[in-house]
């Protein structure tokens, strides 16, 4: 799985050892990455985010999809769960 080999720091620095590219994610981005790595689905993560940040599940899910699209553009996200 592509996500597994990313080096992700607590400060939100992300390093892809395959391409040598580095990225920075904000707090919510970091949360999503971590939860994806734990094997949670976007729907489950949306539940957590709506709990933690007091936003609707729909909004959370939409933002997660948007985030995953950005990841896909960087070649960090390949398909639905990996």
């Amino acid at each position, binding site marked *: 799985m592509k996500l597994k080999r990313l080096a992700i720091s607590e400060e939100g620095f992300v390093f892809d*050892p395959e391409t*040598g590219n*580095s990225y*920075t*994610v904000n707090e919510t981005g970091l949360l*999503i990455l971590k939860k994806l790595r734990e094997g949670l689905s976007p729907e489950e993560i949306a539940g957590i985010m709506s709990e*933690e940040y007091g936003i609707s599940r729909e909004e959370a899910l939409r933002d*997660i999809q948007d985030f995953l699209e*950005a*990841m896909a553009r960087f070649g960090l996200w390949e398909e639905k769960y990996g």
Partner: protein
Amino acid sequence: MKKPYQKPTILKLQVGFLREKKSSLSRMVRQEIDGVPVAELVEKFGSPLFVFSEKRLREQFRYLKRLFEGHYPRVEFSWSYKTNYLDAICRIFHQEGATAEVVSNFEYEKARRLGVPGDQIVFNGPYKPKEILRQAVLEGARINVDSLDEILDLEEIARETGEKLRIGLRVNMDTGIYPRWDRFGFNLESGEVLNVARRIAAGGKLEVVGLHCHQGTFILEPEAYGRAAEKLVDLSQKLENDFGWTIEYLDLGGGFPSRNRLKGLYLPPEVAVPPLSEYAEKIARALLTRLPAGDYPLLILETGRALVDEAGFLITTVRALKRLPDGRRAYILDAGVNLLFTAFWYHFRVEVEREIPGPPEPCVLYGPLCMNIDVVEESALLPPLARGTRLVLSPVGAYNVTQWMQFITYRPRVVLVTEKGNVEVIREAETLEDIVRREKIPEHLK
């Protein structure tokens, strides 16, 4: 109260943009190397010039040796020749007590020529020509076998000598790091190692006395070494039980990082590279918790880069100035990727020989080759430099003086600043004669 929500973002980091933060002019100036002024070095020995510090070499070796010995009772450092096989550099490490780790006939012969006895040589590498393999066997070298074909060669040599040969097995395994180097030796998880062991035992000509595992290069994960050590101990116990061999040494190879800035890493090496003490601790913990008390096989480490990289500098001179179409400044140096193979992996520390007024700005450092790839640094942050300004690049002690190319131009001098502060030439600059000496012109072209 709920935390304030921010939409998730991911931004790709651009090199030039990142490096502005912590740069300050004072950090970028280097007037001397171990007390010898940069200007004096260039006046006497020319530019470009590789400079090694004997003091740093010895200090780093002693530090690492004592560090590991403080964690585990039996440690041997075997100097990785390919990292830097200049005679003087090897001599320093041998004087400090390192054995030699070689991977080819050339390196084996170079170690022997330097007076290293065969039994002080660890012989690795995927291709050991039969002749040198025979010599290594007769001279008692520790031979770590990479393939089944090599086992066949060794069995043949054993038949010639009439003696059972003692060998090490090179093992590759999953230690949780990426990329996994699985082309060397025999795979552990697939059971290949045990199959090979059975084959060796059935042949009756060889005896396995050591295990070797080299995981990769510039490994930033100390725990990976802990896992490798654990797996080797488990394997050694299995081999001892199943085949009655005694595993006398566990060789964890090299791959320890130096304080160099790997391309793609955002954090400076002081933060990104774990201290070597963490590696020592993880390895020792894995060994000491799994080995029976009192039974301590020799731990061999083939540390190269971590010993030599930071002791090497390259002095180079700005020979021309340019402005690129996108507005950036560019400088043409007299040293390029012909001398700095590791420029492909690292952002070197770039220091100027004296303080130069003016705001630092992003610039590109090009080498002197007529090749697009000849980029020493794609994004340095330097004040406006005048032609003739000298720069000091570091750390460059590892791999450059072995992987450098004779291409387009000559290779320069290499000097050593001794512990007493004298400067000795340890490799002369190349001349035309050096390069053409091996060429021949057929009669009809004369």
